[in-house]
């Protein structure tokens, strides 16, 4: 188990990192966690997002969760908010999560064939 001392050191390291980076998050990824989302693989998708973000050291990307959005047959649903625009992806898999990070989160290119909805009018 992590000792108090280790936690204090962790805090110092995290604070150092925070100092070298400023501004708000560059992207926010929200995974739907309703019952059918979870049954359809939302946990694996979330883990894949977190691992990919860690691997690529994307410190300004936030992963969050929401309740279900009401489209059971399209789960797992994932919303990506970037540059003021929201895109909802459907039937996301662990592989899909990696693709979304590489193409959309990093390069700003929406992954067309996975889009469920956009907030564009």
């Amino acid at each position, binding site marked *: 188990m992590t000792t108090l001392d280790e936690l204090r050191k962790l*805090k110092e390291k*995290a604070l150092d990192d925070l100092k070298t980076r400023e501004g708000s998050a560059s992207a926010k990824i929200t995974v739907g966690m309703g*019952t059918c989302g979870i*049954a359809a693989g939302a946990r694996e998708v979330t883990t894949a997002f977190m691992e990919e973000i860690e691997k690529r050291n994307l410190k300004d990307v936030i992963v*969050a*969760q929401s309740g279900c959005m009401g489209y059971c047959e399209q789960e797992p649903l994932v919303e990506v908010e970037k540059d003021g625009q929201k895109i909802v992806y459907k039937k996301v898999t662990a592989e899909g999560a990696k693709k979304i990070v590489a193409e959309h989160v990093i390069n700003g290119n929406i992954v067309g064939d996975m889009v469920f909805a956009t907030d564009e009018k």
Partner: protein
Amino acid sequence: MMPELSLNILDLAENSIRAEADFVEITLDENTKDDILTLVIRDNGKGMDGEFVKQITNPFITTRTTRKVGLGIPFVKQITDLCEGELVIDSEPGQGTELKAIMKNSHIDRPPVGDIVSVIHTLIVLNPHIDFLFIYKVDENCYSIDTREWKEILDVVPLNDMNVQKTLKEDLLSGLKKIGRSLI
């Protein structure tokens, strides 16, 4: 149905989050001598009244507006029924809810606990404003993690900080390994 108990746990914690809890306690207690597995999820969310609780294992009882059936609790009830156990829900409006699922541990229909590390890690990291206490007991051995203790020391550093995320995962993995439950 969920293939792993840890997915039911993620789902039940989602109920607590939707009930606006800011503290969720999750306990898994494996008593191999009496052959009983107990899962307890306790929250300080908005609770339910007695009439509602009585009907809650009926899928048509839901306050969700996105669809007409709620599946989370009926799934758990199905497991406890199959595993010679019981589901006990205690709730008080404005106070919170305690859900206890008791199963015969060795029952053939008892789902494996599964990847509980990912589930607890996900809950903590994705909900940094909610406090979690997770306890896993296997007979006299016990692992626990209390995010309130972490927050006290980490102060302004949030639990979803990347450095913290990593340490959390290591803590969970090594802690469960110590009680002999790393891969279930």
